[in-house]
């Protein structure tokens, strides 16, 4: 067309591997190895078998991390998932106690989570100008409120027939089922985010929802879909949590949303949207899980573990910020 200058533009990515290694995700891999060596030195019980045995306790939170990462990529947030887990877990226990066959329990639990997610998604779809933080703060209170009414005056429920849940927490060799499920789901989420139009849309909406809308991306639909997905996975998390605890109470799932957000942010997924990689979120989740197991094994006070994790999170968000501001100074030419 107007190409009178005959200028050519390079279209082959350069130094792909170098960039991968020197990325935040590359650093997380190193940190993951380091944390494992550290824990091994700290505790003689820190063996593969032991770690895998303790892992299911923490894995349910990784189910929350996966869709939460998508929500953050969209530039949104969902702080109602802890309550959704509580409600779904309550439903799971009560359904089991009411004699519903276990397949039905699985279905009902996941459905409960999905409906909660749809409620969030629907409100945001109909009123796109509302901030998701406030909407999910509202539903956080509502969902937990419903769970508390169901739990009644005792405030807790225990599963009487644990057979189904016990089967769910089974193992293949040293590996618990849930470990495989987390890995499979993680892989799917990673591929979806980098290889599909859906993933690209997530980043596009998170970076600039107006341009995305103008470009014909169905912004509202995708947002609705992701919030619903969040609910579905909260149901899944509730299922596996119940198979660890064999019960639910009013504090079930408390703070889970913050753990999931923390994992994602530590993994380099910015709360501002459009940035970060799913892989980073997954690695950081395993870093946190391993650190918790390791520090738990040497009987460190759980409150101290929390302080360490909090400090680590602040460092994690600080480092890219510092390097970004250094980079900005270099680039600030005009």
């Amino acid at each position, binding site marked *: 067309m107007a190409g009178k200058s005959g*200028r050519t533009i390079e279209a082959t990515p350069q130094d792909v591997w170098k960039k991968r290694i020197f990325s935040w995700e590359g650093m997380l891999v190193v940190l993951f190895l380091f944390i494992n060596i550290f824990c091994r030195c700290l505790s003689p019980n820190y063996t593969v078998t032991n770690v895998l045995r303790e892992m299911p306790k923490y894995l349910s939170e990784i189910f929350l991390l996966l869709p939460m990462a998508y929500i953050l990529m969209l530039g949104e947030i969902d702080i109602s998932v802890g309550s959704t887990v509580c409600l779904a877990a309550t439903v799971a226990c009560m359904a089991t106690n009411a004699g519903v066959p276990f397949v039905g329990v699985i279905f009902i639990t996941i459905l409960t989570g999905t409906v909660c997610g749809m409620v969030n998604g629907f409100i945001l779809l109909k009123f796109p100008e509302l901030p998701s933080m406030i909407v999910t703060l509202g539903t956080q209170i509502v969902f937990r409120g419903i769970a508390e009414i169901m739990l009644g005056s005792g405030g807790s429920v225990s599963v009487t027939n644990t057979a189904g849940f016990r089967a769910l927490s089974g193992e293949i060799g040293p590996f618990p089922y849930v470990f495989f499920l987390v890995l499979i789901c993680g892989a799917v989420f990673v591929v979806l985010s980098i290889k*599909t139009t859906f993933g690209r849309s997530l980043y596009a909406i998170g970076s600039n929802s107006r*341009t995305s*809308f*103008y*470009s*014909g991306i169905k912004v509202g639909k995708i947002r609705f879909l992701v919030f619903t997905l969040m609910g579905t996975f909260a149901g899944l998390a509730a299922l596996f949590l119940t198979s660890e605890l064999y019960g639910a109470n009013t504090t079930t799932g408390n703070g889970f949303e913050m753990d999931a957000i923390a994992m994602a942010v530590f993994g380099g997924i910015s709360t501002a949207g459009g940035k970060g990689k799913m892989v980073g979120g997954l690695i950081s989740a395993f870093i946190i899980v391993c650190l918790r197991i390791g520090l738990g094994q040497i009987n460190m006070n759980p409150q101290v573990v929390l302080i360490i994790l909090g400090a680590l999170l602040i460092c994690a968000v600080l480092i890219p910020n510092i390097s970004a501001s250094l980079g900005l100074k*270099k680039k*600030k030419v005009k």
Partner: protein
Amino acid sequence: MSEYVLELKGITKIFPGVKALNRVQFQLKPGEVHALMGENGAGKSTFIKVITGVHKAEEGEMFLNGAKVDFKGPRDAQAAGIAAVYQHPTSYPDLTVTENIFMNHEIKKRGLIQWKEMNQEARKLLDQLDADFKPTAEMGALSVAQQQMVEIAKALSTHAKIVILDEPTAALTANESEKLYRIVDKLRDDGVSIIFISHRFEDMYRLATRVTVFRDSQYIGTYKVDEITNAELIKQMVGREITDLFPKPDVTVGAEVLKVENLSRTGYYKNVSLHVRAGEIVGLTGLVGAGRTEVVESVCGLTKANSGKVYLNGNEIRVKNPTDAKNLGIVLLPEDRQKAGLILEWGLGRNVTLPILKKFVKNGMINENEERNLSKRLLEEVDTKAVTIFDPASSLSGGNQQKVVVAKALAQDNMKVVIMDEPTKGVDVGAKAEIYAIMGELAKQGFAIIMISSEMPEILGMSDRIYVMCNGSVTGELKRGEATQEKILEYAMEKNANEKSAVKKEGVN
């Protein structure tokens, strides 16, 4: 008293890796309006920031009324009587006009803000500028032109002797510009010296006595405005000769492609009918707020019209959302390309392919090789000045960003109608010519083109046919031969200012 109120000599400003200013000089006479011109990236903005103390020059000297000065920061410049009004009003939209004017230099007594005095003082300043709004009005409710007036009032409130206006007319219509010209005249008559940055030649001819040209971070020369021709000036700015700014090709116009019939949206526009044929460039002009953008937004499914019909190739279409428009081949190049046309932090390639990702999907996954090849080809086709397709869009100049948006439109190979909203806004003269050339090329290829523009020269230079809108209605249609600036303006203005328009006024802004 020295000959110059402000003189800069041998100013060099280095940013890591780049010389943003290379030994430039500048002289401002008392009570003169001095235009500063040059392409984007020529160093004008950096230069202004050196004067206002935002940046510190590595080399060079600055004299104020003959005395050497050394500003440590913007406060020093302000104290010395230098004030700048920037391109994008840097205001606080939720505060009142008075609060904006006196931000950081409130009138205080014993630590308490004197609201009454401040409002009176603001009233005085606004009267001086013939402003038609109250000092207690909320800033965000004002039009861009009015906000600019507040910025000027703010400059005056600091008793500035030198006022710098950075592209003040970029967002203004012809009328509003005229009002601004009168304000500048008045300031000059009051003895204020003015530095005026603009891409619009009309501004320069109307206001300035002298013009200084920068190019590639260097000082090119200072000329008396009435002694230099337009072509010469462009040559100095661009560094090469531009033979034809409006390369409008002769195209045999084909069949009607898009037709809008009696389209209305309450509060925005009413009974708008227009059509565009294949290979035709239709100009849509009028004052800002006349409803031009609102009409095409409805055509593209961004908003919903209340009534009326839209036809594509003779068939009635219903566009409910931008996805429908995309699937039908109606493409909008939005006015605000940074916020609605591009994802600035993304690479150029991904920006280009954003609307057509589905095309590259194989087995559910995006074939990135194919994607990269296509974006490379399209970006080269529109001659984008970039090194790789991975360069972030934010790194390009306005003109090249617009080319990326054009490439993004071209990627949609079902495209039939191209709607360009202010395609050369914020684009410098060299890149403007290139964008006009691309537009001409698109017409040659048989696309139906609607160009919304407030710039008279480009409307007259590029359009086959011109629709003029006023207050939400199409008030006139002119053919290429018969259109003149006067006729357009006549249609664009309300015939009777007292006559209440058909459209609610509040909705129009």
